[in-house]
């Protein structure tokens, strides 16, 4: 059992070493700065600038967080503080299901609903033309995908806040909402933050659903109605051709490494906060 446990932990190490090893050629050839902060993407000329993809990922994620956090926070407060047992029993299977739906289904729904809605109804108010396959479409689809994650973590965080604290606040005459605002939210601020960070890292790595609705166009998007090309989509779309060009494989592995490192850091940070919270209130 110890052996298998160690093996499991080694996987983490092997992934990082393997990805680093594979991306070494491209890191050596171009500087790290060049890779991260230039946007010219010319695999045939052996030049790889990831800025377009990094910015695309950041923008899509930003929109997703902007939509998902308020909705999830409100809904989590409702579920943990106001909802009756019956309502909870009705809503929580829904949230479970939402987290269980495969990304590709979200992608299908996005192309059926979100993309045409943006191109026919929303975009014409703001820009001349948009296909609908855009930063915004990616952000909306992604938002729906991370909502269940944020809700379930925030509910856990709220549950870790001792009931007595709420009771004390109520007993000195505060209303329920005041208690939530001044006691519950204040106490669980780090936990809510951790949930958001976890959601960001989840959004960074989401591949197929975003790929299906964001247009995959190698140019830095000027508005939210423009197509974009996030990092995971880059890997997924090009793994087939990467063998034919020098350093292409290395560049794509670098993209995977980049995602891996950022996500590990974010995850580690938020898990540390969350562990701390649950331990503090546990007897």
């Amino acid at each position, binding site marked *: 059992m*110890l052996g*298998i*446990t160690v093996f499991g932990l080694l996987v983490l190490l092997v992934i990082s070493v393997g990805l680093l090893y594979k991306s070494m050629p491209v890191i050596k050839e171009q500087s790290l700065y060049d890779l991260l902060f230039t946007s010219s993407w010319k695999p045939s000329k052996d030049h790889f600038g990831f800025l377009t993809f990094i910015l695309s990922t950041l923008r899509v994620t930003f929109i997703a967080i902007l939509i998902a956090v308020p*909705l999830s926070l409100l809904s989590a407060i409702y579920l943990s503080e106001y909802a009756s047992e019956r309502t909870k029993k009705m809503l929580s299977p829904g*949230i479970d299901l*939402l987290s269980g*739906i495969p990304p590709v*289904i979200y992608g299908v729904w996005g192309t059926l609903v979100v993309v045409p809605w943006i191109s026919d109804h929303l975009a014409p108010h703001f820009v001349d033309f948009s296909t609908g396959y855009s930063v915004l479409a990616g952000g909306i689809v992604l938002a729906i995908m991370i909502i269940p994650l944020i809700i379930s973590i925030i509910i856990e965080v709220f549950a870790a806040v001792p009931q007595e604290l709420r009771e004390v606040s109520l007993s000195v005459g505060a*209303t329920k909402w005041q208690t939530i605002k001044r006691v519950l939210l204040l106490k669980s601020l780090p936990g809510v933050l951790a949930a958001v960070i976890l959601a960001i890292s989840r959004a960074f790595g989401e*591949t197929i659903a975003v790929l299906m609705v964001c247009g995959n166009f190698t140019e830095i998007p000027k508005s939210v109605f423009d197509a974009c090309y996030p990092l995971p989509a880059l890997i997924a779309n090009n793994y087939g051709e990467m063998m034919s060009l020098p350093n292409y494989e290395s560049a794509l592995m670098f993209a995977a490494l980049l995602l891996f490192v950022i996500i590990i850091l974010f995850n580690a940070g938020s898990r540390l906060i969350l562990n701390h919270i649950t331990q503090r209130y546990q007897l």
Partner: protein
Amino acid sequence: MRKLEEQIMKALMLLASAIIMLILGFILWKIISKGLPSLNWDMVTKTPSGGFYLGKEGGILNAIMGSLMLITCSVVISILLSLPVALYINFILHRKSRASGIIRFAFDIMFGIPSIVYGAFGFMVMMYLGLQASLLGGIIAVSLLIMPIMVRSIDEVAGQVPRELLEATLSLGATRYEMVKIAARQITPGITTAILLSVGRGIGDAATVMLTAGFTDSIPTSLLQPAATLPLAIFFQLSSPVEEVQNRAYSSALILTIIILILSFTTRYISRKMSGSKI
């Protein structure tokens, strides 16, 4: 004033919850209404025949079988790896010991690694071993993807095994290994839910299999052949310009959704039953 603020916030909360549920309903409704018209027996009983991607005869049996083979093997491998880990950190080590905490933390982090990275890693391993895109490659990547999910969910139920039970077994003269066996029997329903959860996650994931398992029109007969999978069948058919093929993508999506719905309800049913019979 205080009451008004409370009312407004409460209304907003209700609204947010309602929006989330409506979106869920909207997604399900759209997939069902789009997928149902072209769903027929051929879809689930036939493999693609010539000209399938131009709208001719055939079904997606290749993808259904591919997905089933892939997930069955991955779940077996992954349970063999994760059950020992979960038992180890809960019963051999003390559940709240520092070492357990560190191991749990590592698996939590693995849980957060996106599937595309597992896919890229699987691809790397395959190249290292000299493999082409194949069922085996897919199995490696998907096993890694679902292993942390299993460790996490088994770990959760393992925490509910009463300490006294374990101490009682030990005091009756059982060895530590025998005690772990007793504990494992206690958490069998939990292991079932862990498996169902992983099946759901593994069967629906496209990014891992895209890089590792490839795609083919026939049902694989060996581990070294490429295998079609449901998410990719949906993805590829949807990108076709032919309307019939696109419609089939919607019904493939419906098939996958039905599988996920069944898994989700079974999981809920089992875990409810389990919490009912808990000591």
